[in-house]
């Protein structure tokens, strides 16, 4: 696919890196910063064009007339919108994705439609990150919580601990332990190595277990793998930027939320906009401030400022002072490896979260959701099966008979809002949403092929 990426910022460059890794994609990146482009060009097999991303001549030079997708990720919402408009008007680009930060735009109905502002998909990394953190707070103990089928099914990563009833047991006993509900283990990571779960696989302490279950069953499954933490009540958010503000607004009704903001004016503004949140003006790494706010009784500390180093340090300090769980927003993958599950509990990578929502539109076949996992090495995909026995390689087949590529498991099937776990004898029907877990991203094309309907099918 020929893809145009506008903006070589953090999200833009991560997206370019992900997409260029896949052989089928031809990526062109546009930005005004020549140095940043040069650096990217040295590292990745892409073409770069320098210039203002929304200008028609720049888009034309970047090959917009035969691009199949344009992803506008510049800092400015307005540039992104205009670029999509220009690409649509002059080049009829089929798929246009734009990052829109300001909620003011997104809230309005009928704005992002073909005859107004032709943006097919609006993504807001801030909102995605906020949702992600909210789900993590909802399930204390989870390392990752990802939605499928509109949240009916969730993929959850947890670290198994001694004392969890299932730890030390074979997977096939899961049914005896949990007679009333159904869950499937999609993958287990032991010391960074993926293990494909079979019936006789034993869960060890310290394993990172990815399981799939219906939303309402998740807490119970988690309790089998580790002592369940009590639900989070008290939350401190460090950083009152876009993410911090949204997160506070989303949590303040149900949780006791405090927000620390450095900038006096910004803190004042936040306090006007947020009703129940206590907005504190100060430095998140100020030990006195944290002690005054009873950091030792805080359930979750979220470092979400713009500066990742500050996030890491303030989270480490909070942990040291007794906060039960700490999360930090970290952009650099190398930092994630340094601090994840050691100094801090959960590292949140905005690019990783954003990339999944973009990959959804790049995958061939009818793919509803893609989540990129483990720094992009693994992927979870929700795909829709179409066709019939003759034209599809999955419809009408039992799960055990489907020729899945190595390292791939079918976790669950969603049929008309009903969640069915991916046991061997389930027969896939047309229009089923199938949720797959791929340990190795390189088999994604094989999965895409599985779900593509034979061309003779009309």
């Amino acid at each position, binding site marked *: 696919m020929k893809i145009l990426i506008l903006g070589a910022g953090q999200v833009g460059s991560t997206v370019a890196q992900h997409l260029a890794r896949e052989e089928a994609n031809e990526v062109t990146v546009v930005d005004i910063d020549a140095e940043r482009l*040069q650096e990217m060009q040295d590292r990745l*097999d*892409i073409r770069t064009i320098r210039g203002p991303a929304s200008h028609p001549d720049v888009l034309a030079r970047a090959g917009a007339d035969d691009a199949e997708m344009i992803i506008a990720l510049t800092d400015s919402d307005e540039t992104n919108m205009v670029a999509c408009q220009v690409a649509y008007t002059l080049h009829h680009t089929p798929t246009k994705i734009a990052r829109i930060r300001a909620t003011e735009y997104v809230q309005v109905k009928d704005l992002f439609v073909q005859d107004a502002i032709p943006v097919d998909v609006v993504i807001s990394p801030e909102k995605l990150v906020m949702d992600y953190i909210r789900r993590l707070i909802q399930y204390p103990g989870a390392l990752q919580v990802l939605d499928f089928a509109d949240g009916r099914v969730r993929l959850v990563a947890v670290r198994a601990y001694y004392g969890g009833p299932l730890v030390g047991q074979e997977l096939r006993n899961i049914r005896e332990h949990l007679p009333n509900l159904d869950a499937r283990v999609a993958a287990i990571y032991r010391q960074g190595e993926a293990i494909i779960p079979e019936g006789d696989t034993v869960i060890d302490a310290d394993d990172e277990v990815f399981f799939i279950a219906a939303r309402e069953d998740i807490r119970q499954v988690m309790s089998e793998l580790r002592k369940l933490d009590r639900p989070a009540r008290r939350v401190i958010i460090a950083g009152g930027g876009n993410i911090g503000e949204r997160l506070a607004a989303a949590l303040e009704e149900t949780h006791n939320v405090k927000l620390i903001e450095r900038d006096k004016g910004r803190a004042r503004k936040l306090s006007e906009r947020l009703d129940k949140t206590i907005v504190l003006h100060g430095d998140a790494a100020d030990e006195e401030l944290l002690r005054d706010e009873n950091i030792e009784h805080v359930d979750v500390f979220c470092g979400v400022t713009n500066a990742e180093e500050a996030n890491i340090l303030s989270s480490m300090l909070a942990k040291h002072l007794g906060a039960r769980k700490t999360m930090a927003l970290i952009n650099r993958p190398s930092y994630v490896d340094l601090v994840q599950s050691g100094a801090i509990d959960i590292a949140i990578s905005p690019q990783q979260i954003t990339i999944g929502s973009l990959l959804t539109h790049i995958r061939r076949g009818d793919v509803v959701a893609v989540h990129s996992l483990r720094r992009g090495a693994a992927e979870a995909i929700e795909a829709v099966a179409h066709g019939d026995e003759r034209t599809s390689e999955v419809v009408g087949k039992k799960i055990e008979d489907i020729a899945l590529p190595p390292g791939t498991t079918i976790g669950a099937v969603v049929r008309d809002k009903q969640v069915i776990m991916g046991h061997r004898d389930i027969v896939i029907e047309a229009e089923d949403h199938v949720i797959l877990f791929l340990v190795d991203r390189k088999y994604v094309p094989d999965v895409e092929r599985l779900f593509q309907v034979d061309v003779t099918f009309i």
Partner: protein
Amino acid sequence: MHVKVIQRVLGLLLMAFSLSMLPPIGVSFWYDDGSALAFIAAFFIVVSLGFVVWLPARHDHREMRARDGFLVVAAFWTVLGMAGAVPFMLSENPDISFTDAAFEAVSGLTTTGSTILVGLDGMPESILYYRQQLQWLGGMGIIVLAIAVLPMLGVGGMQLFRAEITGPMKETRITPRIAETAKGLWYIYLGLTIACAMAYWLAGMRPFDAIGHAYSTVGIGGFSTYDASIGHFDSHAIELIAVVFMLIAGINFALHFVTVRRQMVGHYFQDPEFRTYALIQTILISAVVVYLLFTRVYDSGTDAFVKGIFQAVSISTTTGFASANFSAWPGFLPVLLVFSSFIGACAASTSGGIKVIRMRLLASQGAREINRLVHPNAEIPAKLGGRIIPQRVLDSVWAFFSVYVALFVTMMLILMATGLDQVTAFSAVAAALNNLGPGLGEVAANFQGLNDLSKWVLIFAMLLGRLEIFTLLVILTPAFWQR
């Protein structure tokens, strides 16, 4: 630096290059010229050499850094020059020394076209074919070809591509994927070669000569299958065909790519480099033709006209075909033509020399300086076709030019120290460094009479010219080898 990565890529490239020995084997059997054994042996020598280099490093899949890329390209061209010499050494006709064989192979691969062979008319066809083929492979760049067909080079391919493609601005890609860019360039190259061969054949060459000369015309090489070069055919039609294809091959291939992709031709004249190239060619051709007519070198006006155009284009694009003995032309013509080869043709074409775009940037730098003296307070950016040229590019052009001149002078002095006269030394170094081919004085027809030291200096000059100096020079600096 990752020695293993370099080793792996080098081994792969050598094995790939060994395949180029196969067509000459076919030619040899077809004409039954008795040289097949040399090529069969050469094939096995090169393929096993590549295999031995590749084998211990075959599992190393790390990515190449920019530094590794330089070393791979420089090492590959050097090793290739030697590997390419193997058939010349093994064959009984011609029976030449190692130095001569290396000279011939490097001259072929770098599209220089200087030869140490005499009596080409009586050589085995397979040897003749092999020489032409070397020029063709070297023209667009054998590494560019490898990038197009070997997907395993991956991202590292870009580092190699940058080190081999010519011109000051190597970042302008015609497609997002480097492999696609390389493929695009080679398709155009192949297409031009086929068209050129057909044209030659229709103009009366036999197919063997048509293909061979098409190789060295589109590759801007200059090797011929006859001692008398293109002059052997004594045909105005053939000379004019050669002129057309040399001019086309001297244009930036990215422009040709746009022509093929978008089916239009208007963009040529929007390209500032092409406009300068056209202007230079027009002036040069007119000067040569008018001077030839004026001095009555040829009896017939048509002769002066065709020979003038042919020789001007052949030398200025650095091809080096001859239809007349231009070194015996009167007045300033011989030196003018050798000087024109310094300019060469466009960047990212198959020609040698400094390249039109660099010359144009240097000229506009000069104009800028004058303007600054007239208007001391003026802000005068360097522009090309309405776009501002980054200072980094200007710096590199200046550096290129000064190093080019310095190396030229040094090598010319070495050649004179070995006992050559000034005209011979000057033109031999120019012919080698600009990848031109024929020189003046003793080297007007061929380079056989030179001493071995001179030949090795010229081999080095040819490699410098083809790899645009810095790729080769950088690996000779201590800083490159420091960790």
